[in-house]
């Protein structure tokens, strides 16, 4: 088992390398660059743009060599200051700093600076994580709970009216485009009924921007009002996320439950004369939850990577929206940081799901 985990973990490293390499190359090949932010500014001269790009070590028209250099700089094998593979102290740049290596790049634990804000990428991301976590954790808890409830009841009462209605609704919501559902919700509940605010995390009129020091100061003065305010903004995006995700997951729970209900040990339990509820809860439900739990594990990266679509529609300034902002501004280093974090989470969650499944289900061989 531990050998299996070790081998799989080692396999992650080339996979991650491939991901960041491909992403970086794609991004550099895309037309435009971070300098496009000066397009609208007549006071910025060409020379200033050149100097600005040189300071970021970005080639205006990328060629294979410049992509290697820039990727090397981000990765930590190349040093932009010395324009070589040697660090400022003369050692090879990829060595640890203490051994004469450089201090730039991810192998030295440095994600670099965001080009737009000139803040460390880590800080920019850390600033957005609370907003995303509030949205995604509430949504995840609600949709998993509802999906399990609906799926189990639909499976136990198979072909009943309830089952048919749940199946039908699951189909509808599974097929609806998330962003369209969001737009319609905004129109109906915000514009027409005026029940909930259409966009944002906090009311801009009454509160400072979310997650700023001023906000937390105001939060400290009246926590209840602050929480209620966020809650009101949370309802629409959470509802959209829950509706869309319940659809697929409740089908999954139902299928897993049905398979479990057809097992021999369930028939044996029934034949022994056990109560129906005991059979369902003790024999069927527990076993049916195994694949469901691994499925939930696969959803965990979503907690941090955020919901790009929903956050865009509702202007929820979290990780998903940060990603879109990064793509629009060609903020290379911010994007690379986001991609590295997101794909690491996805790959690790996959591994964890496989391992958990192999541990709890003795029928699975892992060699």
């Amino acid at each position, binding site marked *: 088992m531990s050998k299996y985990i070790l081998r799989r973990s080692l396999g992650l490293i080339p996979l991650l390398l491939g991901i960041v390499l491909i992403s970086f190359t794609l991004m550099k090949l895309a037309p435009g660059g971070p300098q496009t932010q000066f397009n609208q500014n007549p006071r910025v001269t060409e020379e200033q743009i050149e100097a600005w790009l040189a300071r970021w070590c970005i080639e205006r028209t990328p060629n294979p060599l410049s992509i290697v250099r820039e990727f090397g700089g981000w990765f930590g094998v190349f040093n932009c200051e010395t324009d070589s593979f040697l660090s400022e102290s003369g050692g090879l740049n990829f060595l640890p700093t203490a051994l004469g290596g450089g201090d730039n790049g991810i192998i030295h634990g440095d994600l670099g600076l965001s080009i737009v804000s000139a803040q460390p990428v880590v800080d920019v991301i850390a600033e957005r994580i609370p907003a995303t976590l509030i949205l995604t954790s509430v949504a995840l808890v609600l949709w998993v709970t509802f999906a399990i409830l609906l799926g189990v009841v639909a499976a136990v009462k198979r072909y009943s009216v309830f089952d048919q209605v749940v199946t039908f609704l699951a189909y*509808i919501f599974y097929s609806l485009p998330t962003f369209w559902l969001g737009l319609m919700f905004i129109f109906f509940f915000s514009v027409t009924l005026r029940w909930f605010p259409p966009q944002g995390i906090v009311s801009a009129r009454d509160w400072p921007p979310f997650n700023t020091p001023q906000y937390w100061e105001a939060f400290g003065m009246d926590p209840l009002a602050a929480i209620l305010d966020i809650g009101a903004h949370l309802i629409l995006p959470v509802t959209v996320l829950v509706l869309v995700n319940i659809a697929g997951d409740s089908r999954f729970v139902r299928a897993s439950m049905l398979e479990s209900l057809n097992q021999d040990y369930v028939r044996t339990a029934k034949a022994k004369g056990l109560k129906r509820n005991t059979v369902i809860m003790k024999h069927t439900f527990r076993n049916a939850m195994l694949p469901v739990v691994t499925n939930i594990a696969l959803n965990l990266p979503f907690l941090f990577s955020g919901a790009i679509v929903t956050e865009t529609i509702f202007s929820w300034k979290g990780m998903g929206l940060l990603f879109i902002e990064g793509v629009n501004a060609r903020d290379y280093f911010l994007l690379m940081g986001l991609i590295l974090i997101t*794909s690491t989470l996805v790959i690790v969650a996959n591994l964890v799901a496989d391992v958990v499944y192999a541990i709890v289900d003795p029928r699975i061989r892992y060699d």
Partner: protein
Amino acid sequence: MADTMEPADPLRATTAAASTDLKIAEAGTADYEVALESLNQWQLAWRRFRRHHMAILGSSFLFIMISIAVLGPIVWPYDPNDIPGALKPGGDAPSLDPLTHLFGTDFGGRSVLQLVIVGARISVSIGLFTMLIATTIGVTIGALAGFAGGRLDGFLMRFVDLMLAIPFLFVILVAARFFGGGDPLTLIIIFGLLFWPGLARLVRALYLSLREAEFVQAARAVGVSDTRITFRHILPNALGPIVVSATLIMAGAIVTEAFVSFLNFGIRATDVSWGNALANSQGYLLQGNWWWPFFPGMAIALTVIAVNFIGDGLRDALDPRSKE
């Protein structure tokens, strides 16, 4: 689904039930000669598919949508680039008057019905052609990996892992910006090259398990050639899941086009697609004109639902082990 609740008639699996029943009834008790008609896999599948009401409904809707996509811009008498309000300062206010324009008008005074009809061509063809490209690549690579095994299998599957682990939307957004310029054809190619890895993994798994199945071993034992085994024995058994994935790819491509266009990374502003119409409407939604995003969005939603229902019907119909 309602049809699975019908009592199973054991005769139906192998005989053409309707005609047989009729002949028995006519012949009465005197003559028991029953005309047994054997049906091949496809006829059986078609019969199962026909009973799936939602799938038939979905197919009809998709057929109508494809007809609109093909004929709509030809039959529709107005030019989509003729925007009545374009020259007026501030444009025409969007209005909803079903008597003049069934679905209302947009900011430029264009009818939303027109956006839906003209947009169908780009949106539906992106769905269809993405499905074709991605399914071809996915099935080929999956079958190759599953059948060849060994090093080639390992290499192809590592590549699939890589494709699946890269943030999907990032690649689409960047690629759409890079190759795009908002051309529908480029979007189709980008989608086609990105939607296949999941299917390839599925096909490989199917081939791996079917390769060892008893009926394949039996076929091999009596000397059936590899090609014939692949296409006549394995493919019909793998077809159900493949077709279902294909429909999912089509549904996914239509929604992704809409979303990518919605973020202004997709179809250029001078073309009309459903996602494009939605994107343009977003800025005016807070003024209360719901009809502008509603109808193009409805077109997307209904098409995707139809495609998913077809997939569901095909899953039941193409399962060779299905009793009905």
